[in-house]
């Protein structure tokens, strides 16, 4: 077998005894965040010139691994070797220029007000450093784009392009910097099937040109159509490694999910569909419209958990915000226990016992500079104040009580909330809202960035609340989660409600088919 590496010295040859030298060799890689171990002793190879799929559920450690490979954070232990050279400095510049590895992140980091050419060649402008030649830039960009078979005007301002095209610009930017390894982090999450096909064509083109691709996705059909090699992470550990031909989608999903699925008893098993049709809906949404969603109608009865599924751009987050009053809608009504709730706002929702645990915990949930106790007690401040002064003793007793009830693990309630692990932060968010004794609880991504143990505790808590008659609306991108905790699932696609399915009879596939619009177009 011939070596592809131009660097191949005698030592490398020995290392390649088993085959071609890998593009990326990961050995014993670990990364901890305080007590949380995001990655533990991960070792695998990414073969050069191939497409390797990296699979794993939310919180499996994929993002951490990618961040290390992109030089965004150093590992706590272990090594990464790229084309035979061990990485000794983990920063984005070194990774890109010395090791030729680039990442296409989920949040595209483009300069929105600059042109396609400027974005693609930013940092590697041709000609004079201070005054790059516009003409050469355009020419270079055109060459590159035609090489990649992308029909794009280099003079277009990036802001005017759609997400999918922007993504292609990011790929082109990486190629312009001469990257030999390209990492794509869930690139199809926001794409329509047609757009995804365009991306896949580009990926095939790159692979044919010798670029090594590392590709992260949840979507099995894609993975099995594209990948040569499959690596699976679970709970920070590397649990499986196959050639594509050696495995099946079922086997891969089982490896991803592992014990986790078995661990949570699903709601369908626990409470075989109670008949709630007689009661007044705790939450009734009729023809509700707003940003990125329109004409949505459904009902949630006391004690019921209704899931909301859909791709990230399906409008499900905006729908939740509209119901709670966090953002203004454009039409339709929301009724709570039969009474129409007009002029929705967070302040009014608190009074109406409509609770909302937002999905972006850090940006929308945590009072970042305050203590665990203050975070939990924020909704009791008014009730526990006298003449505008907070009764600190009563406040501390009440928040301690709430923290204990939800098993928030913290040394004291005076700890900064940011010291807690994601799971305990999330339990604190839930504890906060239980203070208003909600009749309707709206949750977005209730276990995002939460470890398995805390996840189970949160599920138990939600089931207990449902027993107590709380109606819940729970949006999640984690389909196994929705299948575990809900009674029914409303599926959104491109801002429209395309179906409400009974969880007992639903599968990940059936929901995805609805969410990607495959059924709607057929019907």
């Amino acid at each position, binding site marked *: 077998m011939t070596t592809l590496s131009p660097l191949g010295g005698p030592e490398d040859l020995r290392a390649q005894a088993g085959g071609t030298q890998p593009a990326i060799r990961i050995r014993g890689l670990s990364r901890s965040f305080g*007590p949380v171990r995001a990655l533990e002793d991960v070792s695998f190879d990414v073969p050069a010139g191939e497409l390797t799929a990296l699979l794993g559920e939310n919180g499996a450690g994929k993002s951490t691994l990618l961040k290390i490979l992109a030089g965004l954070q150093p590992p706590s232990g272990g090594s990464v070797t790229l084309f035979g050279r061990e990485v000794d400095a983990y920063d984005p510049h070194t990774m890109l220029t010395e090791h030729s590895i680039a990442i296409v992140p989920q949040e595209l980091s483009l300069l929105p007000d600059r042109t396609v050419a400027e974005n693609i060649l930013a940092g590697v402008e041709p000609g004079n450093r201070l005054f790059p030649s516009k003409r050469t830039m355009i020419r270079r960009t055109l060459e590159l784009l035609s090489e990649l078979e992308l029909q794009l005007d280099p003079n277009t301002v990036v802001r005017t392009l759609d997400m999918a095209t922007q993504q292609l610009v990011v790929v082109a930017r990486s190629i312009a910097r001469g990257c030999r390894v390209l990492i794509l982090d869930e690139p199809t999450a926001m794409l329509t099937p047609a757009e995804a096909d365009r991306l896949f064509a580009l990926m095939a083109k790159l692979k044919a040109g010798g670029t090594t691709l590392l590709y992260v996705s949840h979507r099995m059909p894609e993975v099995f159509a594209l990948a040569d090699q499959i690596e699976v992470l679970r709970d920070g550990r590397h649990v499986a490694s196959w050639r594509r031909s050696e495995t099946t989608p079922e086997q891969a999903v089982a490896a991803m999910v592992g014990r986790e699925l078995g661990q949570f008893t699903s709601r369908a098993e626990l409470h075989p569909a109670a008949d709630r049709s007689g009661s007044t809906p705790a939450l009734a949404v009729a023809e509700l419209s707003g940003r990125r969603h329109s004409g949505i109608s459904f009902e949630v009865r006391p004690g019921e958990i209704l899931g909301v599924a859909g791709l990230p751009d399906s409008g499900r987050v905006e729908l939740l915000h509209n119901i*709670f009053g*966090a953002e203004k809608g454009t039409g339709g009504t929301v009724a709570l226990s039969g009474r129409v709730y007009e002029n929705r*706002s*967070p*302040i009014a*929702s*608190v*009074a109406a016992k409509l609770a*909302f645990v*937002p999905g972006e915990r850090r*940006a*929308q*949930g*945590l*009072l*970042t*500079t*305050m203590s665990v106790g*203050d975070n939990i007690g*924020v*909704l009791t*401040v*008014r009730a526990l*104040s006298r003449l*505008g*002064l*907070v009764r*600190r*003793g009563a406040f*501390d*007793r009440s928040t*301690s009580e709430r*923290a*204990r009830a939800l*098993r*928030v*693990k*913290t*040394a*004291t*309630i*005076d700890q900064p909330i940011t010291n807690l692990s994601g799971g305990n932060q999330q339990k604190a968010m839930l504890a*906060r809202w239980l203070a208003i004794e909600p009749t309707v609880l709206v949750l977005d991504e209730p276990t995002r960035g939460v470890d398995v143990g805390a996840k189970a505790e949160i599920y138990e808590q939600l089931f207990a609340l449902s027993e107590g008659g709380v109606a819940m609306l729970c949006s999640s991108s984690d389909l196994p989660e929705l299948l575990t905790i809900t009674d029914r699932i409303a599926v959104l696609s491109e801002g429209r409600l395309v179906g409400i399915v009974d969880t007992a009879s639903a599968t990940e596939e059936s929901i995805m088919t609805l969410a990607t619009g495959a059924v709607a177009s057929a019907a």
Partner: protein
Amino acid sequence: MTATSVLAPKASFDVRKLLHAREAGVFAALVLLFILGTVLSPNFAQSGNLLSVGQQISQIGIMAIGATFVIINGEIDLSVGSIYALAAISTGMAIAAGLAWPVAILIGLGVGAVAGLLNGLAVVLLGVPSFIVTLGSLSVFRGITLLISDGAPISLSAKQPGVAEFTLLGQGRLFGVVPMQLIIFAVIAALGVVLLSRSRLGFNTYAVGGNQEAARLVGINVKTVKLTAFVLSGLTAAIAGVLGLSFLSYVQGVTGTGLELTVISAVIIGGAALFGGSGTMWGTIIGVAFIGLLQNILNINGISSFWQTVVTGLVIVAAVAADTWQRKRKTRA
């Protein structure tokens, strides 16, 4: 990980917590400064000298109490020096026009509160960043001050009835020892401590400053919290302005120019972060004392006031650098 669900309500006085508090570093620096002052000059630690320092820092201190609310909100108020002058001129003109001095004071304070309210409304309703709003109003309020006084200074004549009583506020000393200004500062500081650390408004101030979106989503009225902070800032600037008038019996349109920078410096040295959500009233009080002592030490050791400006500037940067360094070390640990 050990599951320590020890959630006992905190003891009312926890030494460790006190040592870990952010203002502990500033307090240590204050103590060092005090020792340095004592070593450098025998006159420094005299009660007479320290009381005069107290007199000198009172107006800045009062303004810093209001500014702390604004800064913990994650906002800034650059217009306090202008509000100081506007309130002083308004009060001075009212007294000169023959109004009773308590009424004149109320007019001055009212003007300050309204000025603060206008700042707040522009920030909250127009959504313009407070830096820009108050950069503009710094100029507007100063201009109005010059306009209504026609650029002429106002001197209060001691012969006019009521002026003697009025000037007692700024010039008087309780039992002939403790400056009245210092007492007023102490009272306002005490109110500030209670309001920020014990009241619902204080709680909401930290919530809004730390994460405005999260605060909004738990039903905190973000607009009210911010408006209140700007009103408090305007009001405390006006109180300081009235005291300034009382102290000198004199005010002119350009009085108080640049005060905002000293006030903001004191709050920052006291440990409040400019991006909001953290800081304490005690920190601000220590920061004010630090600036006062520093200037006094430079003064009594005969160092030119030009150098004082340089040193104060360096101290601000050093204080924030030390804080940043400490926080970085903490997150790495």
